[in-house]
């Protein structure tokens, strides 16, 4: 296998007292679709923020194409970021700009292309996500699914090598969500791109993933492909696949204690 495009080594992160990531080590290889799966609050979004250089780890390192984004020089970091596309959970479109301006922004700021060229490229990207003709709309005028697609078009503007998606189907109805999944599949086929997706949606995982990492309690508890994931015997994996709720331990006295707090210690 070729050299990893993203290398994560012994990553630790704390929010105050609470340790979110407890030593993550991962390799993501070029042109694969890598899904980071996990329950809400397991630190998967935090892990992604580390990969795109938005957050500093307390310990450990993240290398993207051999570069540590946080210690890299400004020029190097900028070059790197231009080749990364990010689809945020809430789309993060600039609400003060039209859809067209949103998509064109990276081109306008980072290249010296003619206005007409920028316009054509903008239309091209919007067409790719099925939003041609929506250039003049404001983000607030679009539905959630359309905003997601517009955000995807913006993430693709600079023809990135790596595309990061944070919960691409969050807040969308199942049909629109599957539409986004198929769009990602289409992009995967059309462009040679490494795609990293953070999600908790099993359906989309089985549709688009090449490899899966299951994050639980700050650790990677499973790493492998779809078939291995389905067969895996790890209880956390089983719970995920079989959609089982957390078991509630029935400990009467402990429960009573949590209800009354410390006030009745003397009794």
């Amino acid at each position, binding site marked *: 296998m070729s050299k990893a495009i993203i290398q994560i080594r012994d990553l630790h992160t704390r929010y105050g007292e609470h340790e979110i990531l407890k030593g993550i080590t991962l390799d993501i290889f070029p042109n694969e679709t890598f899904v980071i799966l996990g329950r809400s609050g397991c630190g998967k979004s935090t892990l992604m923020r580390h990969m*795109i250089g*938005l957050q500093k780890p307390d310990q450990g390192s993240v290398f993207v194409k051999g570069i540590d984004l946080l210690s890299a020089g400004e020029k190097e970091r900028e070059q790197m970021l*231009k080749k*990364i596309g990010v689809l945020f*959970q809430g789309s*993060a479109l*600039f*609400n003060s700009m039209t859809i067209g301006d949103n998509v064109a922004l*990276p081109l306008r*700021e980072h290249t010296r292309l003619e206005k007409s060229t920028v316009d054509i490229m903008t239309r091209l990207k919007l067409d790719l996500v099925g939003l041609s003709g929506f250039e003049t709309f404001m983000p607030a005028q679009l539905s959630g699914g359309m905003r997601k697609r517009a955000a995807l078009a913006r993430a693709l503007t600079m023809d990135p090598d790596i595309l990061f998606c944070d919960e691409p189907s969050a807040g969308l109805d199942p049909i629109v969500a599957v539409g986004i999944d198929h769009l990602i599949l289409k992009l995967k086929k059309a462009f040679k791109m490494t795609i990293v997706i953070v999600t908790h949606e099993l359906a989309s995982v089985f549709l688009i993933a090449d490899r899966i990492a299951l994050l639980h309690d700050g650790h990677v508890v499973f790493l492998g492909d779809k078939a291995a994931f389905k067969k895996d015997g790890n209880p956390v994996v089983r719970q995920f696949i079989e959609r089982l709720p957390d078991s509630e331990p029935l400990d009467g006295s402990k429960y009573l204690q949590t209800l009354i707090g410390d006030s009745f210690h003397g009794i």
Partner: protein
Amino acid sequence: MGYCVKPLAQITIVFGRRLLTFFVHLARIAKFFRDTLYWLLLAPWRGRSVRWGATVVQMVRMGVDSLPIVAVITFFVGLIIAMQSAYQLQRFGATIYVADLVGVSITRELGPLITAILLAGRSGSAIAAEIGTMKVGEELDALQTMALNPVGFLVVPRTLAMAIVLPCLTVLADLFGILGGLVLGAVSLDIPVITYINETTQAILLKDFLTGLTKSVIFAVIIVQVGAYQGFSVEGGAQGVGKATTTAVVTSIFLIILADLIFTALLFSTG
């Protein structure tokens, strides 16, 4: 013995914590200001041009749109000062000096100050709310991952716009304040317009006018820095944005008056 120490320790802890947060804020503001200066003054020499288009948009929003309110308010203030001073001066039959009083107090002090306070309320709050909402909506993160520095992208155009627009508005404020005095002088004190204007031009020194403008540039930097800093430090949703907006207005008005005090004291002591 132990009972005596406890409250003292309590006070030390509370006070120490306050002091610590204050210094943390101070350090962050200093870093923020340094970043702004870098993106304003140094970055353009390294191939990152200032966004002039966005600067013009901001100038229109901060400047052109505030023209009516600034004109009306300073006109009223001119009227008020004229009435208050006429009330005193009438006893000495020296109502002509209303022109001096209005002219000097408006150009030296009230023109820049009132314009700055108006803009702190109007644009400072808008800056905090806008940037704060962008922070909540991950838009600042999006900028960063697009290799666009939020300070260079958002704060520099606003700082430039405000630093250009506020002195211009101050000139307008000076004119309308004097006009307010002139109207009162002409209408109720029977001072001929020409006499009033002559008296005003004799009373105001160019120095007064220029120190007013210098102050307004300092005020402009305060308004944008405080507003943007508050916007960037928004945490947690709509409530956070509201809090940041309030803090931005209160803090910038306080700092404007503090800066005014220091500036005036310096001028006063150097004669």
